[in-house]
């Protein structure tokens, strides 16, 4: 018997399966979603307004708070945007350190994703393991920058301080440990029949539409399109390290996105090792900026982008020649993934899979509304 009656269900903002403080309004028929509508704005702080009131250096301390799970691409974008407009040089060693921080941030973001993705499919063990192991990466950050979550480390002109003594060897040790643990995660997550059944064929994005719909990052690579800002628009020294952009997992469902991330976390560990090899031992790490209260950036604009764990992070930085940013417009990957794309691909899915799909797209509300 076919039931034509639709029911409205509000998934969030207070819901254990939602990926942050947002809400998806679902119309369901039986168990099937017939219409989805994303509601955001619960985390709006008005960063772009606040930055107009702060000077160029003060703004740097708040950009990292735009995206909580992975703050470093924001700092990198902001720093590179300012440097591009001003024409400021960055010392060689600082650029290597920036890459190191970005890759470590990617690794910890993927470890958190392991927990979220498997938790939404009902497997809680991996979350206990991977979020616990993520603390080892956060410990490295703490040693390097002083903060576990918000680092405020990459700033215009370089990075804030040099690597501590013996830091490289500790990074190498943590990388070895995590690489070993990844095999354990594979055994309980990817070899698990429950996880395979829950993810294969779910959340399909048509590959021929993916670019047009604005998909970026792992979901785009899972559609078989090898697109990565690190290769396409290389920043720092990403053209000097070897890594592969995966396009072999092309079923474009949650399973393929999981495989892409599983592949990429290993690539990131590999990149970190190359960075440790190639980084010069000595040299300045910061090109000193003038007194920040009198530091004016010439009039101009720049669009800079960085590959974060969830996709392309873009900053449109505009300066009017004064001591304050004129406008800094942030484009997070979730801005498109979490609203228009999610509304499109949720239609026809089972209601139990909604949170699995949201995790696989990496919807992260703080960067949607800033």
């Amino acid at each position, binding site marked *: 018997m076919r039931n034509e009656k639709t029911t409205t269900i509000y998934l969030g903002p207070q819901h254990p399966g939602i990926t942050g403080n947002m809400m998806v309004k679902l119309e369901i028929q039986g168990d099937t979603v017939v219409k989805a509508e994303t509601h955001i704005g619960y985390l709006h702080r008005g960063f772009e307004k606040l930055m107009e009131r702060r000077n160029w250096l003060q703004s740097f301390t708040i950009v990292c708070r735009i995206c909580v799970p992975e703050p470093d691409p924001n700092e990198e974008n902001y720093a590179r945007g300012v440097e591009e407009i001003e024409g400021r040089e960055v010392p060689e060693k600082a650029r290597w350190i920036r890459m190191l921080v970005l890759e470590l941030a990617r690794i910890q973001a993927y470890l958190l994703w392991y927990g979220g993705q498997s938790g939404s499919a009902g497997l809680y063990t991996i979350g206990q393991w991977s979020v616990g192991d993520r603390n080892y990466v956060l410990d490295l950050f703490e040693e390097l920058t002083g903060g576990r979550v918000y680092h405020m480390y990459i700033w215009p002109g370089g990075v804030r301080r040099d690597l501590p003594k013996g830091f490289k060897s500790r990074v190498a040790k943590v990388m070895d440990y995590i690489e070993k643990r990844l095999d354990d995660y594979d055994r309980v997550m990817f070899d698990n029949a429950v996880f395979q059944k829950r993810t294969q064929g779910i959340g399909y994005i048509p590959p021929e539409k993916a*670019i047009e719909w604005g998909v970026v990052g792992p979901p785009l690579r899972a559609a078989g399109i090898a697109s990565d800002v690190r290769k396409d628009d290389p920043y720092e020294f990403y053209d000097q390290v070897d890594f592969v952009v995966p396009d072999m997992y092309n079923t474009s469902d949650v399973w393929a996105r999981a495989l892409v991330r599983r592949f990429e976390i290993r690539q990131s560990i590999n990149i970190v090792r190359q960075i440790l090899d190639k980084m010069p031992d000595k040299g300045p790490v910061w090109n000193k900026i003038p007194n920040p*209260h009198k530091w004016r950036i010439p009039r101009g604009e720049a669009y800079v982008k960085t590959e974060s764990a969830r996709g392309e992070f873009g900053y*449109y930085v505009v300066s009017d020649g004064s001591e304050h940013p004129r406008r800094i417009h942030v484009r997070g990957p979730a801005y498109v993934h979490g609203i228009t794309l999610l509304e499109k691909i949720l239609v026809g899915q089972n209601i139990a899979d909604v949170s699995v799909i949201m995790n696989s797209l990496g919807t992260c509300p703080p960067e949607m509304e800033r």
Partner: protein
Amino acid sequence: MADLTYENKVILEMREHFRDKIIETRVQRERRVVMRTSKDNIESVLLFLKEKMGFLHLSHIGCVDWMEENRFEIVYILWHPQEKINVLVKVDIDRLNPVAPNIDYIWPQANTYEREMREMFGIEFEGLVGPRELILEDWDDLPPMRRDFDTLHYVMENYSFRSGREDAQNVREVIANRTGEEIPEFAKKYSR
């Protein structure tokens, strides 16, 4: 030296096709092409870039409030997936009568950007559907991202602080007083 062949080719082709409807074309740097057009031509320019030139991916729509010059500047940033080039198309619209064409039939995700701009800058897009409230709820002041909206004034009116902030000084003023320097007008307005 970076190879700018394709960047220059984009500019040439756009100039050839649109002639004087495209102004201020320049190659900003490797992989960044900037051009400016008018409000009436923006749809045809974007459609041409997408359908004929292959700029399939809409990266970003940004908006800048140039209050002194009495205009909003909307920037459409497109990405060419094969040639790996970003093109920035700028459009000026009048600040007193902010109406812009709606482009969400070209890229569906433009809908969100436009709804946000409608809410944050008060720009109307012709034929834009979707709820008027995207981020804010029951907002009855000026659109908050406009330059003339003073967030500190709003905060002082609507919220209260615990004691302990009274001795917070304007650092910029303290430094200027110490060195006897004149603070420029724009800095006075925005730095507190």
